[in-house]
């Protein structure tokens, strides 16, 4: 069976859009966080698809770097959220309103 790579690319674009829109409309920090992960994984899927269609292993290796960075971001991001939780109840972005914006 053969599948045109554009299907994967479209799926990745849809995932990326869901992540980006979610990032802009959702207010729960954890959900916003998940949206960023969705965007990163959309990029990964794009990398792998292009890697296969270009017959170049570079794209697949890039995915490892992106995964490591995503893991590092999770570590720091969750630590920041925990630090905020400790100080006050409520972890939605709108609870963070001391600075004018």
């Amino acid at each position: 069976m053969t599948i045109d790579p554009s299907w994967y690319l479209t799926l990745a674009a849809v995932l990326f859009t869901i992540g980006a829109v979610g990032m802009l409309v959702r207010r729960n920090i954890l959900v916003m966080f998940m949206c960023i992960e969705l965007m990163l994984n959309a990029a990964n899927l794009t990398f792998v698809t292009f890697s296969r269609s270009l017959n170049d292993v570079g794209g697949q290796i890039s995915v490892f770097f992106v995964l490591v960075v995503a893991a590092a971001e999770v570590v720091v991001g969750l630590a920041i959220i925990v630090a905020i939780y400790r100080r006050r109840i409520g972890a939605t972005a709108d609870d963070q309103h001391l600075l004018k914006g």
Partner: protein
Amino acid sequence: MLATTIILPTINYTAILPELIMLGGMLVLLGLVAVIPRDFSTKTYAGLTQVIGTASLVSSLVLWHDVAAHGAFQAVAQAVDVDGFSVFFLVLVSAILIVAPAFAADYLHDEGIEGAEYFILALIAGAGAMLMGAANDLILVFLALEILSIPLYVIAGLNARRATSGEASMKYFLLGAFSSAIFVYGIALTYGATGSTNLADIAAFLSRNVIATPGTLYAGAALLLVGFAFKIAAVPFHMWSPDVYEGSPDGVVGFMAAIAKVGGFAAFLRVFVSALPTLSSIWEPVVWVLCALSLIAGAVIALSQRNIKRMLAYSSINHAGFILMGLIALSSRGVASSLYYLFAYSFIVLASFGIVTVVAKANSGSAEIDAFRGLGRRSPVLAVFFAIFLLAQAGAPFTTGFLAKFYVVSAAVAAHSYAIAVIAMLSAAVAVFFYLRVVLVMFSGSETEDAVGTPEQHPIVLSRWVWSGIMACAAATVIFGIYPLPLINFARAATLLFR
């Protein structure tokens, strides 16, 4: 039968020695903290950081000498460029790492943030900023961007007892990670369109081929542009910066502002000038709009700010617009003027935030403009120095600020971008108002308060650390403002070796 030998790739470690010194020094510091029974004072850690920065500066200068003598070369499987451009950023970041601890040492101690965390994170961020200037591969640019950004998210939240610090950290993190995700998707699309993540290969591919359906490539370049615009806080991607600057711990904001701008622009300039010059007819108008919006919005919004940290944040956005002009010129002269501007900006912003830190501390943590009222009589020398840095930002002659503005504008004029040059000069004129307002407030208007007899009017006592930092920044600002030739040659050579 298995092969008996494993062939290792050759890595030219001398080519990445400054970065390795930064990271190695950071690991030494980390190990030291783990084994000593009781924490040293923050001043000891600041001193050690300065030693590491100096070592890195020396190795950067050695590398600079190599490049000047033998020409630019690539290392680590063509992923790292060692040319005048990257060496310029190695030197600049090392210098920032030497100056920045001077402003943080006392502040962190007084705020009760003991320990080496800030200095360790600053060294990691420094290594990231250095790699931003040296990276010749989009994946390495992404890694360097994260090595630079992730420590900065933590530094913003360093003052765990203050709610504003946590909020600044969270806002910086969410928007920074958002922009990184956009950026990495841009890399993926660019990779798909050109078949490589190597900047030189991308440039070669684009100059050889005409792409029939350029949609993917344009989308990739656009997303890369958005990612960079977030990092350098260009309007309309600037929303995070005033909040982050206001909420972050005072003594470290200068470092954050300088290093993020330097690293962001290093990669921005290299990716767009070195890899995507063939697309310049597409991205140049977009950068033009970003530049014009940053110039106008940065200056106009800064006018209405009462908090000096926020005012400096908007003035940084204004500066980002000026630095972008060098990219619009798309000439070696333009890039050289951007580099000169980044150099000038780094030291001015470090010292400005350093002085705001001590004044705010003397006014129970308030960085409102009223905290500066009568500073000219209270601590005349400090007020004079702050006036120098503010006037340098406004573009007063005999400072690097004036020459920086002059060079970017003349580069834009030389490239026939007259409209943006006019916008820049108008925004500089607007900017003079809010810088001069602070200067006027400092040197006048304390009579009424004297009558009331405010208790805080005794002079602000500065430690030797802060003085040394202010002196170093003032020297960089004034000496290179009066005698700019060495720095200009350095910036020019940086672009001569640019492929």
